[in-house]
C-alpha cells in the first residue's frame, strides 16, 4: 500500500510513462492494425483515468509530484500538479480518446500509409503534453515543449509529398527556430536573474532580483515570441503550413495539444514565472494585450479570405488563441485592483483554453469528415453538403456558434468574461476588438453553414446521404455534444479556471 502511495506521488511521471508505454505497444503491434488501435485507445483511456485521479487529488488539496531526474542545479525534470496544469492535461487527455476513435475511422477510410508511425508519434505527442502540463519548472517545460515539436514533425510531413515537406519544414523552422533562438536565451536570462527555475519560487525570486526592468521586459517578450506555438503574430505562419497534415493531426494537435502547449506555456510565463504583480508593475501586460488584439483582428481578417476550409480554420485558431493571451493580459491588468470582485471574470482567458479546444476540434473533425466522405476541401464546394452529411454539418454549426460566441454553445462563457474584464480593467477599446472579432467570426463561419444547409447540391453531383465512417461521426458528435454540455454545466472548468486566476492574481 505504501509502495502504491509512493508510486501515485509520481502520477504525472506515470502519465508520461503510460503514453510512452503505449508507443512501445503500438510499435510491437504494428503487424495487426486492430490490436494496434486497441493499444492506442486503451492507453488514451488509462491516461485519462490517471489525469482524472490527479484532478481529484488536486481538488482534495493533496500535493502530487516530485523530482524525477535532477541533472545539475537548475536543470531538473520535475512535476507538480496544479490548476493550470490539470486543466490543460484534462483537455488534452480527454480529447485524445475521442481523437483516437476519429483517427481510426479517418486513417482507415483513407487507406493512409505508415499508420504505425502515425499512432506512435501521436502517443509521444500526448506524452510530451502531459509532461509539459505537469512540469514544475521552466527547464522541464522547455524540454517537453521541444519534444512536442520534434515528435509532431513526422505527423505533419506524413504524406511525404513535396507540399507536405515544404509545410513541415516551415513548421519545424518556426517552432524550433523560435524556441532555440528566443525561448532558450530567455530561460537562460531568467536563471541568471532569479537563480531558480521552479515555478513555485520564480515570481518572488524575480521580484527580489536587481535585474533592470529593461532586461525583464526583454526576457518577457522573448518568451512570448519564443513560444511560437501560441500563434501570436508575427510567429504564426507555421500553423497554416501545418495544415498539410492529416486532419486528425490538425484536429488534436493544431487545434488542441500543440497550440495549447503554446498558450499554456505563456500562461505559465505570466502567472508562475514573472507573476502578475511584477508584470503589472512594469506595465508589460499592455504589450500582451496589444499583440493579442492585433492577432485577433488580423487572424480573422485573413481567415475571411481563405477558401480552403482547413486553412480558414487554422487562421481562426490563430485568432482564437489570442483570446487566451488577451485574457491573460487583462488578468494582469485587473491585478492590484479589488481582487475579490475581479478575479472570477478575469479567468476568461484561462477558461478559453478548455472551451476553444472542444469547439475547434469539432470543426476540424467535421472538415476531415467532409474530406473523407466527399473529398471536398474548399469552402466554395460545400453547397448543399448539409443535406448529404446532416450530422456532421450540425456539429460544425455548433462549433461555429461557439467560435462566434452565441448560446447555447460554450464559447459565450469565456467571451462574456473577457468582455467583463475589459470593462473592469478599463480597456474600452478591447471591447471594440472583441466586437469586431465576433462579427468577423460570424462572417467567415455563417456562410459555410448557410451554403451547407440552404444552397442546393450543384448539378451533376450525387445528392444522397453520405456520412463519414461511424467512428468519425461518433467522435464529432461527442465533441459537439461536449461543446453544448459545457455551456449548460460549466462548473468544473469554471471552478478550475477561477482557481488558476485567483492563484495568479491574489498573491
Amino acid at each position, binding site marked *: 500500500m505504501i509502495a502504491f502511495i509512493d508510486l501515485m506521488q509520481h502520477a504525472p511521471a506515470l502519465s508520461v510513462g503510460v503514453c510512452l508505454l503505449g508507443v512501445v505497444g503500438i510499435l510491437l503491434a504494428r503487424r495487426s492494425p486492430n490490436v494496434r488501435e486497441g493499444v492506442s485507445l486503451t492507453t488514451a483511456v488509462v491516461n485519462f483515468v490517471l489525469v482524472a485521479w490527479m484532478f481529484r487529488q488536486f481538488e482534495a488539496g493533496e500535493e502530487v509530484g516530485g523530482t524525477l531526474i535532477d541533472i545539475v542545479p537548475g536543470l531538473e525534470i520535475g512535476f507538480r500538479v496544479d490548476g493550470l496544469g490539470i486543466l490543460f492535461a484534462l483537455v488534452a487527455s480527454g480529447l485524445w480518446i475521442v481523437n483516437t476513435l476519429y483517427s481510426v475511422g479517418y486513417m482507415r477510410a483513407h487507406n493512409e500509409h505508415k499508420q504505425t508511425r502515425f499512432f506512435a508519434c501521436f502517443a509521444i505527442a500526448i506524452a510530451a503534453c502531459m509532461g509539459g502540463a505537469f512540469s514544475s519548472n521552466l527547464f522541464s517545460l522547455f*524540454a517537453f515543449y521541444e519534444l512536442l515539436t520534434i515528435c509532431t514533425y513526422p505527423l505533419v510531413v506524413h504524406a511525404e509529398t513535396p507540399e507536405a515537406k515544404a509545410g513541415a519544414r516551415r513548421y519545424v523552422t518556426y517552432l524550433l527556430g523560435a524556441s532555440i*533562438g528566443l525561448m532558450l536565451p530567455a530561460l*537562460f536570462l531568467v536563471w541568471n536573474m532569479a537563480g531558480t527555475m521552479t515555478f513555485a519560487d520564480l515570481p518572488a525570486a524575480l521580484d527580489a532580483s536587481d535585474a533592470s526592468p529593461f532586461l525583464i521586459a526583454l526576457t518577457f517578450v522573448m518568451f512570448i515570441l519564443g513560444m511560437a506555438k501560441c500563434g501570436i503574430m508575427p510567429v504564426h505562419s507555421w500553423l497554416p503550413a501545418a495544415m498539410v497534415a492529416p486532419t486528425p493531426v490538425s484536429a488534436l494537435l493544431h487545434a488542441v495539444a500543440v497550440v495549447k502547449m503554446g498558450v499554456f506555456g505563456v500562461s505559465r510565463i505570466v502567472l508562475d514565472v514573472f507573476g502578475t504583480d511584477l508584470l503589472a508593475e512594469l506595465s508589460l501586460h499592455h504589450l500582451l494585450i496589444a499583440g493579442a488584439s492585433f492577432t485577433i483582428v488580423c487572424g480573422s481578417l485573413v481567415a475571411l479570405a481563405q477558401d480552403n476550409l482547413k486553412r480558414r480554420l487554422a487562421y481562426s485558431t490563430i485568432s482564437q488563441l489570442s483570446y487566451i493571451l488577451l485574457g491573460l493580459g487583462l488578468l494582469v491588468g485587473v491585478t492590484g485592483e479589488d481582487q475579490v470582485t475581479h478575479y472570477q471574470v478575469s479567468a476568461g482567458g484561462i477558461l478559453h483554453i478548455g472551451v476553444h479546444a472542444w469547439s475547434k476540434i469539432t470543426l476540424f473533425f467535421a472538415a476531415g469528415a467532409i474530406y473523407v466522405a466527399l473529398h471536398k476541401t474548399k469552402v466554395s464546394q460545400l453547397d448543399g453538403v448539409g443535406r448529404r452529411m446532416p450530422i456532421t454539418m450540425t456539429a460544425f454549426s455548433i462549433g461555429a456558434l461557439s467560435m462566434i460566441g452565441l448560446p447555447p454553445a460554450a464559447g459565450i462563457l469565456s467571451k462574456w468574461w473577457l468582455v467583463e474584464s475589459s470593462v473592469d480593467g478599463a480597456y474600452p477599446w478591447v471591447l471594440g476588438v472583441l466586437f469586431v472579432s465576433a462579427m468577423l467570426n460570424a462572417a467567415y463561419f455563417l456562410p459555410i453553414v448557410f451554403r451547407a444547409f440552404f444552397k442546393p447540391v450543384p448539378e451533376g453531383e450525387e445528392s444522397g446521404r453520405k456520412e463519414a465512417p461511424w467512428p468519425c461521426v461518433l467522435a464529432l458528435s461527442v465533441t459537439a455534444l461536449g461543446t453544448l454540455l459545457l455551456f449548460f454545466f460549466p462548473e468544473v472548468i469554471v471552478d478550475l479556471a477561477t482557481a488558476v486566476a485567483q492563484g495568479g492574481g491574489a498573491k
Partner: protein
Amino acid sequence: MAGQLPALAVVVPLLVALLIPLVSRFNRRAAWWMVVGALGFAVYGAVAMLLDLCGSPIGTTIEYAMGRWAAPTGIEYVVDRLNGIVLTMIAAVGLITALWMRKSIRSEISEKARPGYYATFLLCATGYMGMAITGDVFNLYVFLEIASITSYVLIGMGRTRQALYAGYSYLIVGSIGATFILLGIGHLYMEIGTLEMADIAQRFAANPELYDSSVVRTSFAFFTVGLAIKMALFPLHGWQPSAYSRAPSAASLFIAATATKVSAYVFYRISFSVFGADFLISALPHIRDGILILAVAAIFVGPLLAIRQRCLKRLLAYSSVGQIGYIMLGVVLLNEDGLTGGVIHFWNHAAAKGALFCVAGVLVYRTGVSRVDALAGMGRTAPWTSAVMTVAGLSMIGVPMTAGFLSKWYLGAGALDAGRISIVPVLMASSLFTAMYVWRLVQLVWFAPKDTEPLVKEEAPWSMRIPALVLAAACLYFGLTSTSVDIARDAALSLGLGAP
C-alpha cells in the same frame, strides 16, 4: 600495479604497437586483438585513475616519476581531474574505434597494409594519451610528434589518391604548427630554464615580473598559433575537411573524435598549469579577447559552412570547427562555469561526433560513397544506425536532455558571468545552424520520398552497430546525469578558478 598506472597506460600501448608488425608475420589475425587488448588496458588505467581522483580532495594529483628520476631532472607524469577526463576520452574513443573498425578496415585497407595500419593506429592513440598525461613540456612535444606523424600516415592510407594529397597537406600545415610549438618551448626554456610544467608554474608564481618578458610573451604566441593550427581553430582550419573526408573511416572516426580536442586540452594545460591563469587575465587581456573572438567566430562560422556540404564527412568536419570553438570559448572565459562547459564538451563532443562518424563509416562501408544524399531512405533499411545519427545530431544541436545542452548551458552561464552577454545570441545562432544541417540529415534518412531506392541496403553489422549505440547512449547519459559536470567543475576549481 595501481601505482604504476600512469606509466603503464602509455607504455603498454606503445610496446604493443611496436610488437604488432612482428607478431603479424606469424599470425595475421592477432593485430586487431592486440590493439583491442592494449586500448582496453588503457581504458582500465584511465578510468581507474579518474575514479581514484574523484574520491580524493580537489587539487589532488597522481604523480609518477619516470625511472624514479625525480622532477625536474626526470620526466614526470601528472594526472589530475582535467587530463583524467581527456585521457579517459582518448582511451575510450580509441577502444570503441578499435572495436568498430575491423570490418571497415577489411573493406578499405589492403591485406598487406593492415598490420601497419593497426600499429600506426595504436601509436597514434599512444601519442595522444602521452600528450594528455605528461607533466613535461618537451615530452609533450615528443608525443605530439608521435601523434601527428602517425595521423598523417593514417590519413594518407585512405582509398583514393586524394587521401595522399590530404595527408600531405596536413603534414605540411601540421609540421608548421608543431614547429611553432617547439619554438614556444625553446623560448620558454631560454627564459625560465626548466621544462617541468609544475616547476615553470612555480617560477612564474615566484617572479611575476617574468610575465613582462618579451621572450615569455613570444613563447606564448608561438604556443597559441601552433596549437591553433593543430586544433583547427578558425581561421586555421583549412587542413581539416579534406583530412577528415579522405582518411579511412576508422581513422577519421578516431581523429575527429579526439585529435583536435587533445590540442585544445594542451592549450588549457599551457594556459593554466604552465603560464598560469593570471598571465591571460592580467598580462595579456587583449590576446585573451582575440582568442575569444576567434572562438566565437568558429562557433558561428563552423556550422554555417557545414550546412551546404555535400560530403557527409566534410560536413562533420566543418561542424567540428564550430565545436572546437566551444572548447576554446570555455578556456578564455576564465571563470568556473565557462571552464566547466568547455571541459564537459571534451566528453560530450567526443560522444556525439564519434557516433556521427560511425554513421559516416557505415555509409562508406555499405555504399562506397560518403555523399550526404546517399543517406536517403536509410531509416527503412538501417533503423539502428539512423537512430544513432538522430540522437547524436540532437546532441550536436543541444536539445535538452542530451549532452550537448549541458555544454551550451554552462558556456552560456560562463559568458554571462564574464559580462559578455553578446556571446549568448551567437551560441543560439550556432544551435540554429546546427539544427539546419542536422535536420537535413534527419529528413533524408527518415522522410525520403517513397519511391527512393535506399543506397544503404542493409543495417550495419553488429560489430559496427554496438559501438555506435554505446556512443549514442553516452550522449543521453551525459545529458541526463551530472557525472561529467561534477568532475569538470572540480577540474575547473583545481585549475584555480572560481570559489574553492
